C-alpha cells in the first residue's frame, strides 16, 4: 500500500501567501510553493518557501510564464522546485476550486507530479483571531488517479501541517499590525522592477 503524501509547509511560506491575499482583498490572488520531497522520508513534501504571483488578470499566460521561468531559475540553484500552487478566490463565499486554479495546478503537475493545490479557506481565516486553531487556513487539493482535483477528505487535516505549531499566532499578530502592506508579488515587480518578489525583508 502506498503511503499517502503529506505536505509540511513552513511558517514563512504559509504566512506570506495569506498576507498576500489580505493585501488584495477585492481580487483573486495566486502564488507558487517551493520545496522538495523530504530526502529522509519520501512520503513527505516539504514546502520551504512561497512566491506571491498575481492579483490581476490571473488567467493570462505571459506574466505567468515569465514568473515561472525566473522562479525556477532562482530556486533550482538551491535544489528546490515548484511543488504546489496557491489560490485565493475573489469572493468571500466562493469555496470552489475554479478552472484557472485547476489549469495552473495541472501545468505544475507536469514537472512535479505530486504537486498540490492550496485554496485559501476564507471562513477559517475570518475565524482566526477568535480561535486557537493551529491548522492552516488552507484547503488541500490533490489530483486523483483520473487527474481530477479533489479536496483532501476530512482526514485531510493531517495531510497538511504547518511546521511551526505557533504559526497562526504569528499570522494573527501580523494581521493586526497590517503587515500585508509589505508583501511584494510578481505583478508589483513587473510594474516596477525595483520591487523584489523574493520579499527578503518581510520577516526580518
Amino acid at each position: 500500500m502506498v503511503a499517502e503524501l503529506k505536505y509540511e509547509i513552513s511558517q514563512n511560506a504559509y504566512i506570506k501567501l495569506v498576507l498576500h491575499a489580505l493585501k488584495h482583498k477585492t481580487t483573486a490572488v495566486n502564488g507558487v510553493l517551493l520545496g522538495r520531497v523530504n530526502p529522509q522520508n519520501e512520503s513527505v513534501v516539504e514546502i520551504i518557501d512561497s512566491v506571491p504571483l498575481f492579483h490581476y488578470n490571473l488567467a493570462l499566460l505571459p506574466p505567468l510564464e515569465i514568473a515561472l521561468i525566473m522562479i525556477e531559475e532562482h530556486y533550482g540553484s538551491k535544489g528546490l522546485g515548484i511543488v504546489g500552487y496557491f489560490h485565493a478566490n475573489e469572493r468571500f463565499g466562493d469555496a470552489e476550486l475554479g478552472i484557472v486554479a485547476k489549469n495552473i495546478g495541472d501545468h505544475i503537475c507536469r514537472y512535479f507530479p505530486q504537486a498540490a493545490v492550496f485554496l485559501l479557506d476564507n471562513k477559517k481565516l475570518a475565524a482566526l483571531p477568535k480561535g486557537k486553531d493551529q491548522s492552516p487556513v488552507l484547503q488541500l487539493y490533490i489530483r486523483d488517479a483520473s487527474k481530477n482535483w479533489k479536496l483532501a477528505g476530512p482526514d485531510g487535516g493531517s495531510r497538511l501541517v504547518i511546521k511551526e505549531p505557533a504559526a497562526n499566532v504569528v499570522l494573527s499578530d501580523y494581521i493586526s499590525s497590517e503587515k500585508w502592506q509589505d508583501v511584494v508579488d510578481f505583478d508589483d515587480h513587473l510594474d516596477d522592477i525595483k520591487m523584489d518578489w523574493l520579499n527578503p525583508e518581510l520577516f526580518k
Partner: protein
Amino acid sequence: MVSKTEETQLNRLENQVDNGGGGAWEYLCLVRKLKVRRSEKVLKHGLSILNDPKKRSALGPEEWTLYEQVAIAAMDCQCLDVAKDCIKVLQKKFPESKRVGRLNGMLLEAKGSWAEAEKAYSSLLEDNSLDQIIHKRRIAMAKAQGNISEAIELLNKYLEIFMADHEAWREQAELYVSLQMYKQAAFCYEELILSQPTVPLYHLAYADVLYTLGGLENLQTAKKYYASTIDLTGGKNTRALFGICLCISAIAQVSKGRNKEDKESPELQSLAATALEKDYKQRAANKLGLLTCSLRSLKN
C-alpha cells in the same frame, strides 16, 4: 485608470494624512477624482471630518458629497450602521432624491438582500431607464453572487447602449479572461484600441490575450502589439519587453520545420533583451543574473 504619477501623488497624500499631517479633504477629493477603491482610508478620514462639526461646516455644500462618499466606503468595509447613518442624513436633506435611492439600493446589496435591491433598482429605472449607475449596480450584483455569465450578459446589453464607456469594455474583457473566453476578451480590447489607439494599456492587454490564445497568427499579432506598446511607452514597459521575448520564442517553437523564416526576430529579440538587461542593471541589479539566465533559456 490611474497613471503612475497620479498613484504616487495619491500615496504621498495618504501617507501624510495617515501620519497626522493633515490634508484629509484633499485626499478624499483625489480618491473621488481618480475613482480608486480605498475604502478603509476613506472611511477613517471621512468620518474624522464628518464627526467634527467645525470641520464639517467648513465644507459647505460639499458636506453632502462627503456623506455619500463615506456611505459607500462604509458599505465596502461592511460597516453598515455607519452607512445607514450617512444615508439617513442625506435622505433628510434630499427627500425625493434618486441619488439617495441608489444608495439605499446599495445598502440592500451590502446586506446581501439581492431580491430587494433588484426591486429598488427596477423601480428607479422605471423613472430613468438610462441611469448608467443603476445598470452597473445590477452587473455588480450578478458578479457579487458569483454569476459571471449573467454579469457578462448584462454588461453586453449595457455596452449596446453605452458603447463609449471604456471602463465598461475593460471590465467586460476582464470578465471574459476570468472565464478563459479569450477570443471574446480580444474583441473587447479591439474595440478599445479602435476608440483610443494611443493608450498603451490596451495594446499590452490585447497582446497578452492573443499570446494566451496561441497559434502562429495570434503570436505574430501579439508581437506587433507588444512592439506598439513599447513604442507608446518610450521603451519603458517591462511587460511588453518580456512579451516580445516570449513571442519570438513561441513563434520559433510553432514554426519549427515550417520553413517560415522570421528575419526581423533575432534583432528584435536582442533589442528587447538588451533593454531589459539595461533596466535591471540600473534598478534591480540583484536580479540581473537571474534575468540573463531566464532570457537565455527562452532563446533555446
